[in-house]
């Protein structure tokens, strides 16, 4: 039975890889591979389900592949299967099958037909890894793939400004969710002294025993999980990303933002439920979060005049209720609600163009002119205020951009004195001094040493903040992010157990991908001298689509995406941050988040958006 579980991950992966090598013009084959993958997965699952149910639906756990082992640390892929996985699996496979079948004709003759199916399959891979994951590390792999595929699908119409901008925006919010996961992982390393599997979380006495002594750590982990879940499931205060994600072809919006992607936060809560089950305060928090989101989002949904935003907010409101259900411990209800809501919203989004004919017709027959304006139970003043506030989406979008990303940007701008030359003159020598100190710790006063990692990681954070707000030089931005990783490596290296092999695991991917990326940027610079900056979207993928693809791979490597050893190194670095070094952990995770955003921003500004040259049709910025 365990073997079968693996196939649920292998089939999507094979499907994805196969779709990569099929040429663009073979529309038919591409779509066949896509819906074939989903159908095969679905069929396998049905067969499996018979045996599984016959065996009394046991919880299955496969400790699979150890990717990395060091003293006191192992990174392993762990697969886990229970009824939550089963429901997510069946809904996911069914909807993916429907959507790929649907898109087979719907996307006919669309530029990027292949790209579309590649991305859907990549999403499906990430989705399955996430729902089958048996520990945080595996989950994080899937989580990252979901983030990337979301980015790619939102920016599907990459020759337009708004999809490109919104893709970066959504990616940024997702990335904030990633901090939650990263810090939760870090804290749980210290709580359990191992990479805990979800299976073990079911061991009540074990969990209870650990939490008894570390209730603060326990609360912290739960809080971080809630942040991650809220970001991914568009709960407050993150909600405004969801309607903005509906930039791709309608079926992709339907499956991603109507159903599957947006319910991953719910999944995270269900999966970690045994962990926080007995933390009453956390349950109250989740319940309240769900409640406020449900109320606010349904008010926003009620005033929407665009059909997709309306469905989006209505879906958020339902997910808010699902959060409440989970908080109340009604897991089965929550699962049923998830499935029903996913089907309903997917269908509603798919048929959203039909509202014109349907509702106009209804208006024709049932129209009642609006006579009295005020709702009886609301005083007029309050009605107007709430109405306007809801039209403004309760300022959620401006809140995120002004107070979160705007703050990052403002700090970054205070470092504007950093230019390529200044980096060489100031930052590099300081780094060398730091390196020297690392090996000559004996000469340092011992009371200074604990502060050094924090200081270094703080400098690293400065690097990414500057990279994030850099407007002119892509090269500087790239170098700063490279430097950030170097600072982090240095900071962690002061922690005694950190081995050279760990450092090289961490930096290997970055150095290789960073080098390739730097070379790529130089090439682009010489080819497009006039159009090489970060002050606007340049849309170079119009002329250099292949180049854009390979550069994206380099970017992924740089941001610790699970394609290079850096991904493991990232986790390794965190595992070496000691429990009391929460500042270091905080700076590091913040740096990780902002670094990722800075890289995707760099990629988007250079390669996405409407093309800077106008010898062909160019869309309006507002289009």
């Amino acid at each position: 039975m365990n073997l079968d579980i693996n196939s649920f991950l292998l089939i999507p992966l094979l499907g994805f890889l196969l779709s990569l090598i099929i040429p663009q013009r073979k529309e038919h084959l591409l779509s066949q591979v896509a819906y074939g993958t989903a159908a095969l997965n679905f069929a396998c699952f049905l067969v499996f389900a018979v045996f599984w149910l016959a065996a009394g639906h046991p919880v299955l756990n496969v400790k699979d592949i150890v990717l990395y082992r060091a003293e006191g640390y192992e990174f392993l892929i762990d697969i886990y299967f229970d009824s939550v996985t089963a429901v997510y699996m069946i809904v996911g496979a069914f909807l993916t099958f429907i959507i790929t079948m649907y898109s087979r004709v719907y996307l006919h003759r669309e530029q990027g037909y292949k790209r579309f199916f590649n991305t859907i399959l990549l999403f499906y891979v990430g989705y399955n890894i996430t729902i089958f994951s048996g520990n945080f590390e595996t989950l994080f792999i899937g989580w990252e793939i979901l983030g990337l595929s979301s980015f790619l699908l939102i920016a599907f119409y990459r020759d337009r400004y708004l999809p490109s901008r919104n893709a970066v925006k959504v990616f940024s919010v997702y990335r904030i969710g990633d901090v939650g996961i990263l810090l939760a992982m870090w804290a749980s390393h210290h709580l359990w002294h191992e990479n805990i599997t979800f299976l073990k979380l079911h061991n009540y006495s074990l969990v209870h025993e650990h939490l008894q002594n570390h209730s603060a750590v326990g609360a912290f982990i739960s809080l971080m999980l809630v942040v991650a879940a809220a970001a991914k499931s568009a709960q407050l205060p993150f909600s405004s990303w969801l309607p903005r994600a509906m930039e791709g072809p309608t079926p992709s919006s339907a499956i991603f933002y109507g159903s599957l992607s947006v319910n991953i936060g719910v999944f995270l809560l269900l999966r970690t439920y045994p962990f926080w089950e007995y933390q009453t305060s956390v349950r109250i928090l989740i319940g309240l979060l769900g409640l406020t989101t449900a109320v606010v989002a349904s008010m926003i949904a009620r005033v929407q005049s665009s059909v997709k935003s309306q469905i989006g907010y209505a879906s958020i409101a339902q997910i808010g209720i699902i959060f409440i259900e989970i908080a109340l411990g009604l897991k089965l209800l929550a699962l049923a609600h998830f499935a029903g809501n996913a089907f309903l919203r997917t269908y509603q989004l798919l048929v959203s163009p039909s509202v014109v004919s349907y509702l106009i017709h209804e208006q024709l027959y049932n129209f009642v002119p609006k006579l009295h304006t005020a709702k009886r139970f609301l005083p007029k003043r309050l009605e107007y205020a709430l109405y306007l506030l809801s039209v403004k989406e309760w300022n959620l979008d401006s809140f995120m951009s002004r107070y979160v990303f705007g703050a990052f940007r403002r700090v970054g701008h205070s470092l504007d004195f950093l230019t390529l030359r200044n980096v060489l003159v100031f930052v590099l020598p300081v780094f060398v001094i730091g390196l020297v100190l690392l090996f000559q710790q004996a000469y340092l006063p011992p009371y200074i040493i604990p502060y050094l990692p924090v200081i270094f990681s703080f400098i690293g954070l400065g690097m990414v903040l500057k990279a994030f707000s850099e407007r002119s030089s892509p090269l500087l931005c790239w170098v700063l992010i490279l430097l950030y990783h170097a600072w982090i490596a240095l900071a962690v290296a002061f922690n005694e157990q950190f081995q050279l092999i760990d450092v090289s695991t961490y930096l290997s991917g970055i150095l290789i991908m960073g080098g390739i990326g730097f070379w790529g940027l130089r090439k682009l610079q010489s080819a497009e001298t006039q159009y090489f900056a970060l002050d606007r979207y340049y849309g170079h993928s119009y002329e250099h689509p292949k180049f854009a693809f390979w550069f994206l791979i380099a970017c992924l490597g740089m941001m610790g995406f699970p394609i290079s050893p850096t991904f493991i190194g990232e986790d390794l670095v965190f595992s070496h941050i000691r429990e009391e070094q929460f500042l270091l952990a905080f700076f590091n995770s913040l740096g990780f988040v902002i670094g990722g955003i800075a890289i995707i921003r760099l990629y988007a500004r250079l390669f996405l958006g409407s093309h800077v040259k106008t010898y062909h049709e160019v869309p309006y910025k507002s289009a």
Partner: protein
Amino acid sequence: MTTKSIQKHLFLEKDMLHKLRHYLPAQAPLKDFIHHNTLHAFQEFPFHEALSRASAIFGYRTYLPLKEYRTRFQGGSIHADILARLIDDNTDTPEAAQELQSRLLEKDYDTSVEARIGTVRKHWKDYGIHLDKLVHPILFRLLGSYLDQGISVWKFPMPANGFVACLREMERVAPFGGIFTTPRAKKLFLDESTTLKYLLTLLVGEEGLFEHYLFDQQCSHAGWAGMVAVLEENPNALLDAKTISLHDLIFMELLLEIEMLDRTFGEIWSPIGYKIEQAIPPLFAPTHTDELDEVLRLWQEAFEWSYYDQVLSGLRSSHSNNFPSNPEPKNTREASFQAMFCIDDRECSFRRYVEHLDPKSQTFGTPGFFNVEFYFQPEHSKFHTKSCPAPVSPKFLIKEKERKNVRKSDAHYARQSHSLFRGWLISQTLGFFSAVKLLESVVRPSLNPASVHSFRHTDKHASLTIERDENAPMENGLFVGFSHEEMTDRAEGLLKSTGLVENFAPLVYLVGHGASSANNTHYAGYDCGACCGRPGSVNARVAAFMANHPKVREMLRERGVIIPESTRFIGALHDTTRDELEFFDDEDLSATHKTLHSANQTTFREALMLNAKERSRRFELLDTLKSPEKVHESVKLRSVSLFEPRPELNHATNTLCIIGRRELTKHLFLDRRAFMNSYNYALDKDGKYLFGIMKAAAPVCGGINLEYYFSRVDNQRLGAGTKLPHNVIGLIAVANGADGDLRPGLPSQMIEVHDPTRLMMVVEHFPEVVQKVIRTTPELFEWFKNSWIHLVALHPITKEVFVFKGEEFVSYTPLHNSLLKALDMKILVESTQENLPVYVLADASGEAQKNHAEMEEFV
């Protein structure tokens, strides 16, 4: 300010807004899609000059890419001899010709477009602020909520009348949540005496730049600006009418700009005009045409004439048996039945098959409202909708009674699913039913309550109030039904303008048309343009009723049209997507007529199948090689499939409008590219009916043609882009995503197979008569004078071709004297997806074929 200066100021403001409105897209809300010339603002200029000017000012692409012309030349769809003739006409010396040729064929040009629009407002960037990014989302949301026709659950509160008035009242009393947070903007907003000029002074400073600034601002979201301008002119374009004006939109937007600037910089920032150091060229200063414009112009002409030339050659070879021996041709043939269709290009091939299957049948073309103009009110409907060409304002109302089929509803569109608690119940119950619907929609597509089906427009079994009861009161200022006199006028006009005044067959069909589609926001653009974007079923039925009425026949006799007792008119509807026909009132036929009718129905059925097969050659995913029955089934399936963005291809490839007798075109294969209006010059010596026909055909056919043209050459700016990501806003328009501007124009799926060539209108009449007719009104004359439509007069006796050029008719000799002969339609249809040249049909009269100097055969 003195009264005088206030007046002057208001006048200038009005002037400016008037000018602005002129340049904004003029597309109506989705429910009445009416085609029009996208560049209507430039129609006062000659075509090519207008295109180059529009491009220089607004940055549109107005021709195909240079590359594409060259590829088409290589591929043979632009003919070398046509190009050579054009080069010859445009040069004096062989050297110049050589030079021009190398420019056309080889020279590299920088084809980038730089626009004047946006050059003032782009300077906000110098402030380090992205104003549009901050203002657009909130502005679009407010507009959408205010104008919404039925998407939102919580309707816009209407404390006052007008967009700004409502918002001002709400802002005034709301204790929190207001739009404006900065004191200055809020104060200016609440102060009713704030003027645009004052706001512009704050923002722009330099008065000389005001106009440019406003154009920049409104054109940065031309979709919304255009919609507001349209609704200001015609608030009744919305069923739930709203008062809005361009003034209100601009007022709101200027204030939001001030708000965002104040938020960022406090109240201390200098107007943008003071920051601009270099002189900015005025938006509408003269533009000059350069070498590239010239090259593109010639390519476009060559492209167009490569097709026109064949058509003209084909038309010349027509109906020679009637000429010149019989100078006053009359319709003398005995017909098995007659069928009158809409002039629509989609009926072109259907008529061909009907005539082919029953060689004794006759077909006619006329605008699909059959000369009866009225508002139609379906039973139980709260509104009546126009059922005639858009510019006409009817005085009549036709009501539907005793409707049998009931409209079904679908809970998926119910607003309750968006509310909190009911949404909770619905998603746990209906949600699982959605899964079934999802599966069904991809595995077995079928008609659902939200699909658009032309046959649902009116119930075949319902009755209509066509005859006016003299005692009945008027409703909403409209007469319910027509009097006998009024009916006679309309029937006379219909018959005389089409030339069907004698030799009536026992059955005359009046066939309107409509379309069916699922999940299609632009569904109204698929229906009959002459019925204001609705199916023509009611018009066909009403017109048939009139022509059958004994009183009407009596009065018609007095006016010289004698319809025999034995002739019956039958109204019908052709569904152009599904290729199906529905007949009205055919149960009441006499036994003899019933027999004839059922024989004709067989003809129609077969013609529909063949027509579906011919259409299918354009559908890449459909196997045209299958039998007509199978292809027909697949074609029908497209109309109900949610995932099919191309249920039919509509007017794509249209490029001809032929006004004359069917004998002109009957022997030709015109590949569904021609609007055809039947007209007999001999019955209309002074061109009275011709004027009526041209007055309607020029804006309708020209509008369709040019909308397709511009949506095709710049689908991003003049079209709606791909429809796949479209999001419906307020039921009035579509946008991309959540924050996007409205997208007027046609989506790429509608125009991708279209060849952007202008309309060539061919009129069968003496050039001097045509010349006189087109000069009747300046509006009509403008279309031809400025070459937005190519006009050709075909001499009815000598068959000489005259092309309208520089306000004169000039004799034209086609270069191509030979046309290919289509031996087998099946092979021809199955041969390619691309546009086909003009062919002579194998079953055309021997005479027509012999007229070709040399005949090549198509195998």
